[in-house]
């Protein structure tokens, strides 16, 4: 049975247990950072940060402040554009049991720009030392041992959820109904296309430029499957100016 994440940002306190838990489980080294006037650090995903809590703050006309947290990660797309863009066999694989999209060491032979460009969510990163392309792997080692992915395990707030896709979709739909009462603009981000379903209380772009895939909406599923993809991320970026 395919698995899915349901990430309810309305419950996220940005405690960053997920961000740190991911690094710890995967023994990823810290990258040097600086305080630049925001709590978001590192500033972006990088080869050693596969999970990143993004912070964005807003004030409306009435002076009401919102602070949005977006625990970003690979969406494990159901029809993964990165996999379709892949030209090296065994470099990008999808686990049928869980739906996990996995980058193996063979990604070192891929063209990073192509793989990166294929991703509508700006996820893949290149490890300059190994030349491998890296991203979240759903902690498939843990999942196959019947353990939760570490980011989900770390989350005490109920923001990060993981389980059978059908259950997660139901959880997401139910929660959306609740949240909409308070936040009419609340929505799920590409729930039909991805295995990592975010619920946001406001326009997704207010959380993160790549919170939703805008590019793919222009393409039909058929076009995508036919391999008629373009570097979608670049497209998305171009559209956002």
């Amino acid at each position, binding site marked *: 049975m395919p698995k899915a994440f349901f990430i309810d940002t309305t*419950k996220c306190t*940005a405690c960053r247990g997920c961000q740190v838990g991911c690094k*710890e489980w995967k023994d990823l080294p810290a990258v040097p950072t600086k305080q630049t006037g925001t709590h978001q650090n590192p500033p972006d995903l990088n080869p050693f940060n596969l999970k990143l809590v993004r912070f964005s703050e807003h004030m409306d006309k009435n002076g009401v*402040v919102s602070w949005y947290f977006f625990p970003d990660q690979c969406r494990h797309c159901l029809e993964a554009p990165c996999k379709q863009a892949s030209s090296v066999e065994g470099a990008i694989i999808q686990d*049928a049991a869980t739906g996990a999209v996995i980058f193996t060491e063979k990604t070192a032979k891929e063209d990073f720009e192509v793989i990166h460009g294929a991703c509508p969510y700006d996820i893949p990163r290149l490890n300059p030392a190994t030349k491998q392309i890296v991203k979240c792997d759903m902690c498939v*080692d843990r999942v196959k041992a019947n353990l939760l992915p570490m980011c989900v395990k*770390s989350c005490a707030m109920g923001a990060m959820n993981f389980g059978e896709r059908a259950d997660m979709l139901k959880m997401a739909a139910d929660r959306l109904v609740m949240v909409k009462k308070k936040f009419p603009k609340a929505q799920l981000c590409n729930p039909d296309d991805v295995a990592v379903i975010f619920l946001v209380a406001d326009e997704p772009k207010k959380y993160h430029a790549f919170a939703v895939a805008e590019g793919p909406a222009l393409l039909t599923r058929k076009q995508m499957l036919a391999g008629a993809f373009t570097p979608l991320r670049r497209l998305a970026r171009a559209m956002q100016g």
Partner: protein
Amino acid sequence: MTMTRRTFIKVTGAGLAGLTLGRFGLDLGPVEAYAAGLKIEGAKETISICPFCSCGCNTLVHVKDGRIINIEGDPDFPISGGGLCAKGASLKSLHISPERLTKPLYRAPGSDKWEEKDWNWMMERIARRIKDQRDKDFLQKNAAGQLVNRLESVFHLGSSQVSNEEAAVLHQMVRAFGIVHFDHQARICHSPSVPALAECFGRGAMTNHYNDIQNADAILIMGSNAAEHHPMTFKWALKAQARGAVIMHVDPKFSRTSARSDFHVPIRSGTDIAFLGGMIKYILEKKKYFADYVLDYTNASFLVGEKYSFKDGMFSGFDPDKKKYDKSAWAFDKDADGKVKRDPTYKHPRCVMNLMKAHYSRYDLDRVSSVTGVSKQDLLRVYEAYTATGRPDKAGTIVYALGWTQHSVGVQNIRLSGLVQQLLGNIGIAGGGINALRGEPNVQGTTDHALLYGYLPGYHSTPTANYQTLEEYLKAYTPVTKDPMSVNWWGNRPKYVVSLLKSWYGDNATKENDYGYSWVPKMDPGVDYSHLYIFDRMYKGGIKGGLCFAHNPCQSIPNLNKVRKAWDKLDWVVIGEVFHNETTDNWRRPGVDPKTVKTEVFLLPSAYRAEKDGTISNSGRWHMWHYKAVEPLGQSRNMGEMFVEIMNRVRALYAKEGGAFPEPITKADYPAKFEAEAEAKRINGFFTRDTKVGDKEYKKGQLVPGFPSLKDDGSTTSLNWLYCGGYTEAEGNLSKRRDLTQTPMQAKIGLYPGFAWAWPMNRRVLYNRASVDKNGKPFNPDKTVIVWQDGKWVGDVPDGGYPPMSMEGGKYPFIMTTEGHSQLFGPGREDGPFPEHYEPAETPLVVNPFSKQMHNPCMKVIQSDMDQLAKNGDPRFPIVLTTYSLTEHWCSGSETRNSPPLLEAEPQQYVEMSPQLAQEKGIKNGDVVEVESLRGKTQAVAMVTVRIKPFKVAGKTVHLVGMPFCFGWSKPKCGDSTNRVTVSIGDPNTTIPEYKACLVNLRKAEKVTEL
């Protein structure tokens, strides 16, 4: 239990997904290869506890080949359900860090380097230093000629990081040496909580517990950034919110807590009493209070004596020379039998209800708004939403932390929340209470074990020279009531004190020698031996050496430039630590030539949490065991071993050489070797002779079953009566319990009586006798905490097992207060029976709109050439600075700055400011700025954010900026301590420093030197 919450899918036979892979065929090989070899497979799993905040999250430590390979949350832990915040999630990196201290290090006077030494060399020399200093400076009599038997020239500091068992042997050692300059983190973190909550309800602890927050209908988070500094709070706050509860956050800045609250109300730091005073007025005027509760359970109907008055900011009884009140001016009016007079009709002008009404009548919306900077609309929004819980079927909880404690009015901030909760009938009920989020991992336990100069373990005041005999001491501190319905549990104090002395001195404690009472050091009455005074006396040369364990005062004490200079004046210091920090390496701090620092430093490497066993007590008083997963790294040792060895080495020297007043040391009943399990038993206590309790016989040497069995005749021992009952002959070590079973009634309110153990006697919700009416029926049957059924209480352990009040033998519900009632009027605190608004010691105002009295008239002001205060409304320093914590670092950051993923997420000192202030000062987001007060300056990266707003105060704009207090120079380029800027001003009750409000100015830094 075999079925736990460890797996996310119910285990159904062949649970591992790998077994089913074959069915799909696709990509099978590569995925299997990729996912092969779960790193924790075959690892040994041990339960430990996160060493940071007082949530006390249980962890699973995975060990392979003697090395920690993973630490993650324990899903069976009821508070976290297996989650961990960023700090907890980084525990593996911290434990295995190459930055760990793994060898004893010695720094010779004037030296510029550490030298590695062996333990024996270090311990021998440490014992010698302690003994020589003690022999030289021991004071048998004070200036008045009274016997005091104390040592003033040596201090002990720390630590809330030690286990309860370590705290017990440490406290015993410190008193044996005669040390009075004895303090730890509780002083600077939550010391006001104890006298404030105790004055209201009888005990100085969080009334409920984390899981219970889910039962609230309204959650007022004020003086706390719970989502960041006690992250698990929000698991339960969010649960309540999903049920329809409203979460309100009243705090100077919009934080991660505000982000998840229903709304945030910014308030100028230091004006909480004005804000809550307005709420009291609102409750009384709009009759929002729970009338039966207030009448039956609080002292609203008590009459106050004629000497009491309040005029223009001052209560009666003030002595301006001593800056002290004569509290007898506030005493209750008693009848000829000694019973407090009452007027249940509230007609008498001097009943508490009317005095309270008069007092808070001055807290009108206009004045409150003008002082706090909160709009009237926002004030009403909070008042309305929160006071809606003043009904039997609604619960409101107040959650606070250092935002209330760290003020010159810290105790009264908390006291006033107690008034609100009493009026609304929110104490003792599920979803109610005052949830004091205690700070460090075991600060509740180390407060209970009193690593504080002013208490002996179990909240007994340290004797002063005025009480030369045990009888005099017990008479002074054992309250008496003439009301037969009042339990007055503190009337049992003699049993607990004598049992403590029996534990300390064993067979050497006899009735004839006052159980060794004369060996306990006596303080001089009215003299303060807490942090601010320790460092002041150190600065002035009065303190020569000391012990500092798991504490980082050279980063965390206010007016730090003075503190660091004071530390330079020490001849010797013994430090136990896990990592280097600003205190261990003070002699080589930036700008100082090590040659000029004469201090001899002994740095002992400490084991870290997963390397030792013992208990901690979390904020909800859960007494929980953590197990040792691996051997301590390198040559590090647990602190219990260090204390025991130091004491025994000093003892051996006294046995061999004699010296100054050796009795407290040589006569001590002290372990030869530290073992947590054995100490846990000593804390609980033993019978010293065969004894019968009820119809059960106990032999000499058996464990006392609970504190009701402790005696004042020498037949029992207990190092801490609160924990007596936590380790029994019948059930063993109850802190190890992991039973999650619940009755349906317990399940409804999230009570886990079988998980670990809570003091006192496993009560989970304190004062729960106030959750029922006089007949024992719950005010809110949907959320029953206890109920009287078939002649007995069921649910939680009742707080006093007596029958309901209306029945024969019934008692008042507040068993720890002298008169059995919670106290709206509290005549026992230093600065008044009702909280009153005073401005912080440094204030942007020139007039206090509430009275002519600008500041707390009793606040402690440290005076030296380096302690300077800006004048009221000082134009040189027009900006209010408040300081705080954040999720990713803990306290001074001395541990968490060594965690690579934490430092990656929060790498450098910053100052949060409004866009308006930034524009005024020409500062852009990310610029390095210099923040300066009259005492010092610090550099920080500007974080320009709409989350901080300018305040409109008394008609003018007041800017506030906020800085974290976790950064220090010992990690290069992360900045240095904010406390170089803060003030040495203390609350009059506990001398907690006013970290939360001082005056600064700031400008763009010309040259970046610290970041």
